[in-house]
């Protein structure tokens, strides 16, 4: 695969690692925000190549992990309703709600379908005019433009049997939450390349200044991540704290203006509950009132949802970078991808799932 294999070239990666080794003089704690990066690090064993002084901490950037239990329960309630085709990104099917997951809904006769894009869900709505088609619109800034576009298209084309169950989360408020927490250990950030491809990185400039923390926009291939770590360590060693772009082949400071325009048109800021972390002010997006006709929460009567999340695991601490998966007593024993005790083990992007899959000993 052209333009991918170059970024997995062993010699190039080893060269960057050698430069990191040469430069590092003391311990540094760096957080990669995005679950996709966590998985790439584990999948390629990149952390094993780094000098012992560099500690990578895994951030809350796994949209499946942080989607609130209330929303999962709402999704399950809607998917169980008669005459509903419930559509979702595949990852969400396995996330346990209070009592069941979307797999169970399907096993009990519910019509739950995996789609790759909300526009596929819209197509399903067109083809099934007698059914209510609902799309579970979750994710960070990356999925918001396509989710918003599906609502605009539904409105434009007059598709009234389509609605979205929205729970969007945003990276910058999470960075504030992590850096402002009393026990924060994070000294530098690898900012998520895909989020920045949409939003640019102008939002990070004041955060970097306020907390004096270097941030490097970083891609997802081993060479990208090694390069991101190198740029972060260089800043840390020099005592500087700037926002740098290590993913210039995809990211500009301003980001994708037309994608941002769709987001601005469809969504408005709201406080959002993150599973395992809690409510972070202004950290989410919801549909603007003018699009409430396409809001599944108003279309279906799901106000009576009572959630039930007993305290067992330390997912919340892991999502904030305060603990590593293997520090949980349940890790790999009671808690596995088949018997997940926490959201971080459920999603294929979750930190616990990454450790379980790639690094159990």
């Amino acid at each position, binding site marked *: 695969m052209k333009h991918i294999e170059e970024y997995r070239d*062993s010699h190039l990666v080893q060269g960057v690692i050698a430069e990191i080794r040469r430069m590092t003089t003391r311990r540094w704690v760096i957080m990669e925000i995005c679950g996709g990066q966590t998985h790439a690090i584990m999948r390629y064993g990149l952390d094993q190549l780094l000098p012992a002084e560099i500690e990578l901490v895994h951030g809350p950037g796994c949209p499946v992990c942080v989607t609130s239990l209330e929303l999962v329960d709402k999704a399950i309630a809607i998917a169980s309703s008669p005459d509903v085709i419930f559509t979702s990104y*595949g990852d969400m*099917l396995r996330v346990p709600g209070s009592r069941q997951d979307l797999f169970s809904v399907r096993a009990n006769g519910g019509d739950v379908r995996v789609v790759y894009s909300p526009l596929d869900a819209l197509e399903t709505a067109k083809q099934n005019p007698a059914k209510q088609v609902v799309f579970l619109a979750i994710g960070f800034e990356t999925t918001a433009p396509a989710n918003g576009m599906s609502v605009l298209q539904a409105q434009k084309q007059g598709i009234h049997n389509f609605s979205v169950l929205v729970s969007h989360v945003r990276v910058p408020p999470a960075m504030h939450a992590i850096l402002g927490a009393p026990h924060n250990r994070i000294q530098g950030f690898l900012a998520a390349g895909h989020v920045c491809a949409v939003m640019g990185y102008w939002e990070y400039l004041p955060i970097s200044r306020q907390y004096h923390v270097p941030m490097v926009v970083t891609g997802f291939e081993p060479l990208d991540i090694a390069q991101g770590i190198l740029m972060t360590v260089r800043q840390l060693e020099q005592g500087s704290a700037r926002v740098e772009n290590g993913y210039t082949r995809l990211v500009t400071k301003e980001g994708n203006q037309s994608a941002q325009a769709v987001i601005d048109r469809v969504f408005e800021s709201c406080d959002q509950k993150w599973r395992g972390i809690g409510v972070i002010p202004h950290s989410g997006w919801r549909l603007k009132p003018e699009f409430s006709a396409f809001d599944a929460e108003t279309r279906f009567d799901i106000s009576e949802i009572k959630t039930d999340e007993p305290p067992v*695991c330390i997912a919340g601490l892991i999502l904030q970078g305060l603990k590593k998966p293997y520090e949980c007593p349940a890790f790999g024993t009671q808690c596995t991808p088949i018997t997940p005790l926490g*959201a971080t083990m459920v999603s294929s992007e979750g930190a616990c799932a990454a450790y379980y899959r*790639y690094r159990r000993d």
Partner: protein
Amino acid sequence: MKTITPPLDGPVCPLPLTHHDQIVLGHGSGGKMTHDLIAKVFRPPLSNPALDAGDDAAVVQVCNVAPNQAPLRLAVSTDSHVVWPLFFAGGDIGRLAVCGTVNDLAMMGAKPLYLTAGFVIEEGLDIAVLQQVVTSMQAAAQEARVQIVAGDTKVVQKGKADKLFINTSGIGSINTDIHINGSNAQPGDIVIVSGTLGDHGIAVLEARGELGFETNIQSDVAPLNHLVEAILSVSHQIHVLRDPTRGGLATSLNEIAAQSQVGILLEENQIPVHPTTAAACEMLGFDPLYVANEGKLIAIVGPDDAQVVLDAMRATLYGAGAAIIGEVGSHHPGRVLLKTAIGGTRIVDVLAGEMLPRIC
């Protein structure tokens, strides 16, 4: 700017959902959930030595064929096929049904001989479609040089099945000097695959219209008994053969590592994956090591014979892309490890449940 610190909920998490009470699709994935279902539901009441061996086909002995002769050893296997759609690039359910059972027999070093076929047909299926499938079965049987000698037909009401399900069972004979099974891998052995991985799974996804883009990938569905014959004729050091179908290479190697109580170390750079399959997997968030194959095998071979087996494989129609991908060791018994492209090492686990595309 004001510092925002969220009120911490404290450690919270959901209850585990183990799907103990009800079958979900993940139970049919060929991965961990399937294994657990077999271990909990099927094996305890049905247990016997041939079944408990847990190989692709059971090996049984028929005694007293003739006085003073060694008992006749037979491989017996069965496989049900529920693929949707019925036709896909490179194959169809008929070819799949024949090759599935032929390959399960061949993986024990058996010469496949006779097959049976059971058809569960949904009311409303076009007879022409059925004829096309049966013709394809005959062509595959001819290629594998086996005969379909018995059959059964059931028709169910519309909606009670999805068009057509086919079960095939088969028997094959095993030479007395052949002892190939999943418990036979030994430290020092070499791991060979017969060609590119994941092509069948991606071809079926494309036929379902689930890729959202077009590829030129063809399913690899093929009978592998001639390939097995070719390598058996050059080596007596073939310890394990397995066709990595559902659950892919990763799941099959984990089964072997557990059965033989050995560790397996793979070299990521050496694992053959067709560039288009690799690209499709990249886009969908799949790992080709977990994607299904229907015409590939893994051979675990004594180190002295690795090269002759590789050469013999490459000289066959379905083994041209064969490659050495790793070795067996005594470290980490029961585990499969992978040396990554950039020099790290990681675990290669079994598929947990259903394979799901990632969100972004």
